[in-house]
């Protein structure tokens, strides 16, 4: 994780939205490129330098019935069964 923030006021100039806050981060891939994206987790879950992994999240169908999927980064958590989750 190169840098991150947590957005508490979710939508531009609006405060009555039902959308919760969300994290945004810039993540350096092992291959080099730096990618910005939404983070999975709460406002206390992130720190600069932590190891991240990619999640795919299904948002739902679009007008044509195709699935819309977005990527999110989340902190790599404790090893599970000797391997990182």
């Amino acid at each position: 994780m190169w840098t991150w923030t947590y957005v508490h006021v979710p939508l531009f100039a609006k405060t009555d939205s039902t959308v919760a806050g969300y994290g945004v981060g810039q993540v350096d891939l092992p291959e080099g490129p730096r990618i910005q994206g939404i983070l999975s987790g709460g406002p206390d879950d992130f720190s600069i330098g932590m190891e991240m992994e990619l999640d795919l999240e299904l948002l739902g169908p679009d007008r044509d019935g195709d699935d819309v999927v977005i990527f999110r980064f989340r902190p790599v958590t404790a090893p599970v069964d000797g391997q990182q989750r």
Partner: protein
Amino acid sequence: MRIDGVAVAGVGMVRFGRYPERSPSDLAREAGLTALHDAAMTLADVDEAFVGYIQPSPLLGIKAMKELGLTGLPITHVENASATGLVALREAAWAVASGRARVTMALAFDKMTDMAGGASRGRGTGRDQIDTTILPAAYFALWAQRRMHDRGTRPEHFAAIAAKNWNHGARCPLSHRQPDHEVTVEEVLASRLIAEPLTAMMACPADDGAACVILASTDLVQQRQPGRPVVLPVASALQSETYSPGHTFLGPVVGPATMTRDTAMEAYEDADLGPDDIDLAFCHDAFANEELEYYELLGFCAEGGAERLVEEGATRLGGRIPFNTDGGLIARGHPGGPTGLAMVHEIVLQLRGEAGERQVPDARTALAHLVGGGSVCTVSLFRRA
């Protein structure tokens, strides 16, 4: 781009704020007529116009110009996100400098409060909505978090810059935000958290407004307004992103902070000026932490020295290099297109010696900087003739 033989003939603006009952054309007309009056001209004197706005609607600029008259003059739309106003000025300046026009108009307007409604459809409602609804606050909060990590910068530094700009706004009749009391660091920090570590009072408001600058050949301006100090745009630089290590490939609409350093360097070289020659400066302080970064990138202190500049109060009115004397984007406001022309409006008042209680003593040179999403950066330099 070096600019020779071009002077500001007149400036006008509508105080930025919320105008639910007024159309963009109505706002544009008021700013345009005010500038023409200041220039002692009518639209018949204007050879060419450059109209800027970032609202997602075609044709608005041509329609707005019709409010001022039907003289057949060439009109061109200019759009470069938040940098639009200064880029319209750049085109208007070049049209005069090239000799193809004697008098040009840069006119910009926007109703950000309408655009805010458009963006409220929400994250995740379609393929095109996902990335665009990450707030601008988030982009600049990412800079702030990294700065705090690298330099030990504290939220108090950002809050001090925001408080300064709110308090400058209190002294400016055309500022949207005019607090009735001295805004403190504590007050800024206690306002609502928007995006870690940025609070609501560290951010610019969503504004409606319009601003206009009329340029002409220097001899014509001296002839029309004899005895008035003449303000000259002397350089304008405009850059888009250059690849460098750490380039963010996917996501951001704001470019790397270093774009400001490269663009400022180009403008200084074109004008044969340096940061030490500048008496007052304006920057894209949509969020207070940006202004801190720009102190360094525009060359007003060494890398890592911006926090000390804040602690010394060097960028307040009365300080060594006052920044955003009209309140900046944070207080004066930030409708989008007109923002850069509002900067020029304040620069012209300051260099003419007409800035009232916020006058920088004997101000002779000024710098205006904006970044625009996409992304671009532009820096303009001005001096008194």
